């Protein structure tokens, strides 16, 4: 049993009572909602004649189905329009703040919370989306929930949960040039497995994590769920506080900032905290990681050979064989040189300003390969505006990228941004599941944003460190 960790402290602070099931009734500090998983929950609430209990602790945006091209209303897709209208009606009736596209604040739910300062340390945050773990970058405890639980939270501002174990993952050393947060988390999932985190919350620590900006920490916490851990977090520190001080929530209220900071400091894991498990990874040994298969755990260093299923345990070997058949790769080859048709720079994992800057730096003065469809989908309208302020949109469009509006887009292909047929995609997103990007024959290769940019330029998976004239600083 863990003791004295941030998770233990936040759990205790938010515990209401123990339920007859033995589960804990846990208070939810922030409930984020979007158009795909909430309408049925509002429907269930109406059936029971219940109101939203804490509308001011609930915050809505639209991201999954929203078009990234023509966003004029009604949306061209009838089903998307219907979902948007349903959300508009639900938030209006309940008095929930809604960042719709006319506000300039719309974006992927896991991008807008942090940028507005409503994601804060020591807060419990839930959303009907598995990547809610992202918010853990701030020392919040964020987890994805299903629609019946959304009903619970709307009606009671609580969820019923069992306490989990805490595994500390220490990433020591300094990351090499061209190695990013995305590579660290892909390596963690590769080593511990896609189900290695089941029953656990991950605490990310160590020099490599401490030296990362908030965006990198978000990329790491974001993919905790791909490793089976429902939540992942980093203890808040000066980097966290610097980010928060500049947000809407605190910029004009230093007194509130100091008051809240006391709490933020108090929930940091103790130096002598006890963990159920500790894993150490040497960050200085890592290189850019790309996936060769159809789960996020099937990753390798860009110079490493694709593993041989014959050398795996029977269950993993079957999965690997099917994955290699789908991806059309052979054991022993590297992924370097794998032809791609699409380059997607976006998603709640990697579509924040530093991601776009890093990719733009690779793209600048070059042209997208003839056979490649490349596009950038900023994580939020604010990210988009900030990037345009710096002229990044020009860099991308001059190189031949499409520059789009904010949303989940081709990460899961719920709008028109989808792979066609068996297209292969260099993607900065989080899942390479078969069918994930909208085509059941589509092939996804996950990688960091610079590597996506490099693949767009060359038309194949490319070690960005080998590209001439690219600054990796």
């Amino acid at each position, binding site marked *: 049993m863990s003791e004295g960790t941030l998770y233990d402290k936040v759990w205790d*602070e938010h*515990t*209401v*009572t123990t*339920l*007859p*099931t*033995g*589960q804990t*009734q846990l*208070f939810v*500090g922030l409930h984020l909602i979007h158009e*795909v*998983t909430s*309408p*049925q929950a509002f*429907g269930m609430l109406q059936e*029971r004649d*219940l109101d939203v*209990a*804490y509308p*001011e602790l609930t915050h809505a945006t639209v991201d999954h*189905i929203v078009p990234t091209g023509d966003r004029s209303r009604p949306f061209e897709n009838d089903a998307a329009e*219907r979902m948007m209208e349903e959300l508009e009606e639900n938030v209006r009736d309940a008095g929930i703040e809604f960042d719709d596209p006319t506000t300039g604040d719309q974006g992927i739910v896991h991008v807008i919370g942090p940028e507005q300062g409503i994601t*804060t340390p*020591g*807060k419990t945050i839930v959303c*009907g989306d*598995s990547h*809610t773990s992202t918010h853990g970058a701030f020392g919040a405890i964020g*987890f*994805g*929930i*299903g*629609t*019946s*639980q959304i*009903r*619970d939270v709307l009606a*009671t*501002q609580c*969820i*019923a949960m069992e306490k989990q174990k805490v595994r500390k993952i220490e990433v020591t050393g300094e990351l090499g040039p061209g190695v990013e947060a995305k590579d660290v988390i892909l390596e963690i999932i590769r080593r511990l497995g*896609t*189900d290695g985190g*089941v029953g656990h919350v991950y605490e990310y620590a160590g020099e490599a994590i401490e030296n990362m900006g908030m965006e990198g920490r978000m990329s790491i916490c974001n993919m905790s*769920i791909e490793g089976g851990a*429902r939540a992942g977090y980093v203890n808040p520190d000066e980097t966290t506080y610097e980010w928060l001080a500049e947000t809407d929530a605190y910029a004009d209220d230093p007194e509130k900032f100091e*008051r*809240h900071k006391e*709490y933020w400091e108090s929930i940091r894991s103790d130096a002598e905290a006890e963990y159920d498990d500790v894993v150490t990874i040497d960050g200085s040994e890592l290189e850019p990681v790309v996936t060769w298969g159809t*789960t996020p*755990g099937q990753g390798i260093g860009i110079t490493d050979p694709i593993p041989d299923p014959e050398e795996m345990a029977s*269950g*993993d070997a079957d*999965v690997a064989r099917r994955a290699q058949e789908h991806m059309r790769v052979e054991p022993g080859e590297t992924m370097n040189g794998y032809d791609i048709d699409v380059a997607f720079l976006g998603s709640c994992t990697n579509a924040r300003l530093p991601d776009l800057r890093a990719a733009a730096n690779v793209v600048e003065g070059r042209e997208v390969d003839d056979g490649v469809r490349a596009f950038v989908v900023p994580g939020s309208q604010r990210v988009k505006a900030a990037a345009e302020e710096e002229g990044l949109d020009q860099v991308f469009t001059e190189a031949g990228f499409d520059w789009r509006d904010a949303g989940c887009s081709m990460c899961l292909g719920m709008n028109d941004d989808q792979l066609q047929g068996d297209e292969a995609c260099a993607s900065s997103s989080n*899942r390479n*599941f078969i069918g*994930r990007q909208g085509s*059941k024959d589509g092939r996804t290769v996950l990688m960091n944003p610079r590597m996506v940019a490099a693949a767009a330029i060359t038309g194949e998976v490319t070690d960005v460190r080998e590209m001439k004239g690219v600054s990796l600083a």
Partner: protein
Amino acid sequence: MSDVEDGPADTVEEVTGTGIPIRGNDIDTDQIIPARFMKVVTFDGLGEYAFFDQRFDDEDNEKDHPFNEERFQGANVLVVNSNFGCGSSREHAPQALMRWGIDAIVGESFAEIFAGNCLALGIPTLTADHESINALQQWVDDHPDEDLHVDVVRETVEYGDNEMGANVDKAQHKALVEGVWDTTALMEANAAATRDVAESLPYVESGSLPEVESDD
């Protein structure tokens, strides 16, 4: 396809019926229900899209898949391998399986959010080791018309002349066997205690606290 209503029943002590095996580890929620079928505002009709891309080709012709096989139609106990339901938190996944007709799932292991979503729908998720699951899948394959008996109370699965132990998570056991899995009702009863916790949290502004009557 089963005809189901939203909302909980009383207790789920056992499930009896024929089985259907889905083999393979890491079967994710994008396979169970592709995202394009989630552009809906209710869960009605999701059953026909369960495993859609595994079941149909581009021309909507049926492919080899247990959910297409005549002999497995009417089955209500799904037998799977490890890390079933990984990926997204979409409740659409267990909803699609339930609306296809699945009442219980037995497997090597489940992704956490998926298992939680199943519980919210009253679908037990039982676990057993690799060998036991393989044996059960083989038996179901060989005996598609014979009932198996999933006993949530005793944590066993009986099939043919066999009985195997199968683990039911403690909270799930209590919830299903005692019929206390309507968490909304359970937690609503503690509205005053909830408000107290909210009030004690430094980041919750007093203006956002609702008025509530004291708990019973």
